């Protein structure tokens, strides 16, 4: 009979696990929806920002702003956006592989998210700072990060600033991506990014529209640029954080769904085994009784 009880106990524990994974799946689904909505909500702003930048670009001399100047050298600072919690499939591993493949010898790191911070730390990489970001991502939390990165660049500590994050493609598919934040290459400024926030390229009509209008800039084009670029950088950082969040939640949802399905399958198998064992026990009991009766006759 011990066997029966063992199986029963296992079924119970698997059921508990299934309940937990199912709850996590539902929570992740709700959070994913929120993060996706957030990314979509930022799209209008991103489009407008791009529009103004496209207009501005025609009126300002290139390389006239320190944030647009590219420098020689390989000193790179990389912002790695990973997750705080695990149980989200191969998300962090994939990102880590990408980061390792793309980093040079002179790459230093800034991290968001506990998972890759620990891994990079264990590898003995140079890490400058770590930021914690709440969920859902508030816009105000992107500012200290972008400010820190901009400062490192302007102070001349690094020649290039990039961001590594998981780009949200679909619920099933998250792509580890590395984008260059600084220097803002002059072709890229005003070009629409192809991730969730603004998934269109700057179309020809956009550019034509910008050219046809003769804009007046107040106070001056350069001053407008001066205030606009930090905003742009800030928004880019915000956008990647939101993307990474959407990726995290969708990856967790998928992973948890798989876990729940597996648990259910396992429960089915165990129940079958349990019933077989029960039947066998009954049969053997009956057998005992009949043999006893036979013996008494």
């Amino acid at each position, binding site marked *: 009979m011990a066997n029966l009880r063992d199986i029963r106990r296992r079924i119970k524990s698997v059921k508990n696990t299934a309940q937990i994974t199912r709850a996590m799946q539902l929570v992740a689904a709700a959070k994913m929806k929120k993060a996706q909505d957030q990314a979509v909500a930022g799209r209008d702003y991103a489009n*407008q920002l791009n529009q*103004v930048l496209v207009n501005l670009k025609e009126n300002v001399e290139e390389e006239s702003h320190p944030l647009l100047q590219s420098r020689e050298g390989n000193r790179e600072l990389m912002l790695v956006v990973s997750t705080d919690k695990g149980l989200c499939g191969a998300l962090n591993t994939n990102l880590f592989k990408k980061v390792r493949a793309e980093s040079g010898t002179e790459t230093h790191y800034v991290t968001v998210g506990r998972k890759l911070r620990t891994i990079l730390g264990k590898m003995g990489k140079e890490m400058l700072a770590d930021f914690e970001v709440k969920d859902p991502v508030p816009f105000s939390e992107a500012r200290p990060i972008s400010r820190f990165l901009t400062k490192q660049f302007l102070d001349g500590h690094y020649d290039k600033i990039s961001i590594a994050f998981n780009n949200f493609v679909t619920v099933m598919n998250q792509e580890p991506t590395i984008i260059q934040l600084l220097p803002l290459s002059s072709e890229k400024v005003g070009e629409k990014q192809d991730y969730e926030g603004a998934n269109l390229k700057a179309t020809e009509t956009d550019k034509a529209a910008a050219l046809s209008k003769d804009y007046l800039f*107040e106070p001056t084009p350069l001053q407008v640029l001066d205030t606009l670029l930090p905003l742009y950088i800030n928004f880019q950082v915000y956008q990647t954080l939101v993307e990474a969040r959407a990726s995290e939640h969708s990856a967790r949802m998928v992973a948890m769904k798989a876990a729940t399905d597996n648990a259910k399958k396992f429960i089915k198998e165990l129940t079958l085994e349990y019933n077989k064992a029960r039947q066998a026990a009954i049969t053997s009991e009956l057998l005992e009784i009949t043999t006893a009766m036979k013996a008494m006759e």
Partner: protein
Amino acid sequence: MPLHLEIVTPEKKVFSDTVANVYLPGADGELGILPAHGALVTALAPGELRYEKDGTITSLAIGSGFAEVTQEKVNILTDMALGDAQIDETMAEEAMLRAEKQLLSMDHSVDAEEVAHLQALIAKSMAQLKLKRRPR
């Protein structure tokens, strides 16, 4: 000729409708925009934005940002846009006091950007308070 006003913040689209006129708090002073205004891009300072629709004038407290004006459109891009009902007076006041205190306690020569940020915060809170406390 209609004038279309659109106000967006990073978090959402706040307003999108046709209006009669718009007054913007530009970086160099207030700008009045009527339909068929010349094309213009301007930086905005935290302050009060007013627009008129169907004879009623509505005010919003907005943060710093940009306005793009074309003949038939005004696009506002800002980090804050609050109507009268959305402003929490005590919260705005607290935020302002906090920023002021921080501004006073820090060394201004070290971090010019932080100073600018705090000043912007104060200006934003002031814009909210001014709108809220205006006699009606």
